[in-house]
């Protein structure tokens, strides 16, 4: 019995080997900070990317039945490691294109040193540093995450509309949160608000009580926390609430994860926190749009939390890259850049997360397609950036999960 199975597996392997000639695997590099400072954030993002690949492979595969394979690379959130991972993906694995890596610094190093010289398209799901727009990239670098100004301005405007006038700001001193924090301060002051104290903090400390006590001395109505939930976000909320230093909080998508509610308790947080998250809205309606819902349901069914930071972006970049390869008609590096723009940007038949079969047929019929992603509509401008999505503002709902609030 046991041996029979083994033989069967061996035969299947051989069979798989022989079909290669008909419909080859299409390999795309999937770089992320799997180990290193953001290692806690990465597994859900990779799950998002893998879900997109599963959708492609379940619905007929890529380029005439080939398997869409994501080859992982560990960029460690460190440019040195990212460059090393990138060169292995591009040269040894011979991937068609690269999605990721996670951090802005890792992305910056990898594209400049490896991907651009090799003519390989990079599509990042979470690099938000404005600098990346200014690289001489021969149109090879794309981002599905908006540059940080957008989210901060949207959040600043939202809390201003909610009546907040005086806010204290603390941000983790890393390449993602520092940008968000600075942009928020500028945006809120521009509207006319007052910043009652601003601090950069070193992430991963055991306690922020002393920093928070100083910030609370400024008399602010709320605390804006720009941090990853695991690095310092949860600790800051915990220290503030336990010591009654602040009782209103706002933040961005780096904070939005179920573990925040799990760790601190839904009742503790209800009515006290507002987190912004890119979420395409339905036309004329304030609820989450169809694209996001389609993704969220599939992701939940796969046993993951769709609200974790950047998982929707992760799904989008993997799906979009498959669309671009299908559109290009061949696993040809030089054709991906143009194809990516075509499948992402309007006009064209609207394709939503999970609709691979539909997209494949449309592309085969020569129709133009337009992917509207879970994280936003994704229309690349001339720098390969997306404009700010619409954002939802979330609090803790009655069911104890993150829920969009009015």
């Amino acid at each position, binding site marked *: 019995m046991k041996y029979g199975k083994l033989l069967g597996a061996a035969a299947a392997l051989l069979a798989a080997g022989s079909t290669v000639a008909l419909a080859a695997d299409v390999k795309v590099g999937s770089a992320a900070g799997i180990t290193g400072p953001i290692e806690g954030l990465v597994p859900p993002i990779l799950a998002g990317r893998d879900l997109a690949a599963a959708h492609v492979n379940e619905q007929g595969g890529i380029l005439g039945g080939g398997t869409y394979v994501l080859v992982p690379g560990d960029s460690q959130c460190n440019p040195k490691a990212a460059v090393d991972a990138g060169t292995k993906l591009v040269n040894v694995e011979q991937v068609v294109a690269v999605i990721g890596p996670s951090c802005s610094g890792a992305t910056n190093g990898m594209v400049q040193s490896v991907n651009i010289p090799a003519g390989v398209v990079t599509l990042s799901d979470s690099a938000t540093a404005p600098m990346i727009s200014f690289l001489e990239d021969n149109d090879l670098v794309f981002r599905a995450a908006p540059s940080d100004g957008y989210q901060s301005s949207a959040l600043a405007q939202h809390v201003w509309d909610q009546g907040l006038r005086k806010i204290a700001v603390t941000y983790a001193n890393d390449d993602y949160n520092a940008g968000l924090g600075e942009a928020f301060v500028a945006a809120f002051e521009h509207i006319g608000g007052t910043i009652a104290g601003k601090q*950069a*903090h*070193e992430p991963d*400390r055991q306690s922020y*009580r002393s*920093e928070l006590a100083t910030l609370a001395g400024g008399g602010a109505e709320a605390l804006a926390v720009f941090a990853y939930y695991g690095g310092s976000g949860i*600790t800051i909320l915990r220290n503030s609430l336990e010591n009654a230093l602040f009782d209103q909080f706002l933040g961005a998508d780096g904070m939005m994860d179920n573990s925040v509610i799990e*760790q601190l308790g839904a009742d503790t947080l209800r009515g006290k926190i507002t987190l912004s998250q890119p979420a395409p809205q339905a036309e004329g309606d304030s609820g989450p749009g169809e694209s996001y819902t389609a993704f969220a349901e599939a992701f939940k069914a796969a046993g993951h939390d769709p609200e974790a930071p950047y998982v929707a972006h992760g799904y989008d970049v993997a799906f979009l890259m498959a669309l671009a390869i299908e559109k290009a008609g061949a696993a040809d590096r030089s054709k991906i850049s143009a194809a990516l723009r075509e499948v992402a940007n309007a006009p064209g038949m609207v394709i939503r997360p999970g609709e691979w079969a539909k997209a494949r047929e449309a592309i085969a019929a020569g129709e133009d397609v337009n992917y509207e992603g879970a994280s936003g509509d994704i229309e690349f401008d001339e720098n390969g950036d997306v404009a700010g999505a619409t954002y939802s503002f979330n609090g803790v709902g009655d069911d104890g999960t993150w829920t969009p609030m009015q």
Partner: protein
Amino acid sequence: MMDFVNFHLIPGVVLGSIYALGAIGVTLTFGILRFANFAHGETMTLGAYLTLTLVLLTGWHALLFLPVALALTALLVLAMDRMFFRPLRHAPSIILVIASFGLMLMVRSLVQVIWGTELQGFSKGITLPWVLFDSLRVFPKHVVILTAAIALMVAVHVLLRHTRTGKAMRAMSDSPELARLTGIDTERVVRATWIVGAGLAAAAGIFLAYDSHVETLMGFKMLLPVFASALLGGLGRPYGAMAGGLVIGVVEELSTYAWIGSEPLLPPGYKAGVAFAIMVAILIWRPSGLFRGRVF
């Protein structure tokens, strides 16, 4: 004024006592095995994750498992010593440092594989403090951590002063050659060192997790301040390590107090550098540490 006590002094003392527990292990390893053990931070992480597993299995309070977790961690560390340090017992100390670096990488990756990298916690929700005299805020968990830390330190004191093993450890730390001549079973002392060091490191990890949460890099992030504490107290000096840990914990927290005006004295982004600044200052002013450590 009460802000100073509540938000700077008390957190500093709690953090300092956790540093101190970690630093005792570093300093003992240094005194007896003669190398700086980079895997010490991962020992803390291991203690916290073992406790987490027991908590998730039973649903009981984390601190009930303190003895079990300490023993388990010590056993694992003894096994690691057997595999990776014992074959190098007579090698130069730099080789042991590099071996401990390799071990650090190995333990961390096993923790990542077994428990995953996502953040977890011993308990849910927040705990509110007791408010005494209308202004003093005391957290039950901090009282527990401090009491347990002090109890562990007293236990170490008793061990070192009043047991044969402890006396042998001190003798070996003072002069290994002499200790060997007087017929002390050095391997036995080495085992005792690992058990004490690993147990205290596990306790430090568990207290840290109890105060905040469990994550894969928690021990590594403690490593440098713990080294600084051990050095401040004088390498090879367990009492020095206790004092060093407390000093560093408290000064770190006080560095962001608004001593002048309403802004923190030191921008909080530099907080992690405080331990090192103290350390360098001490090295210039009193190179053998506060408690006259080993100079060789």
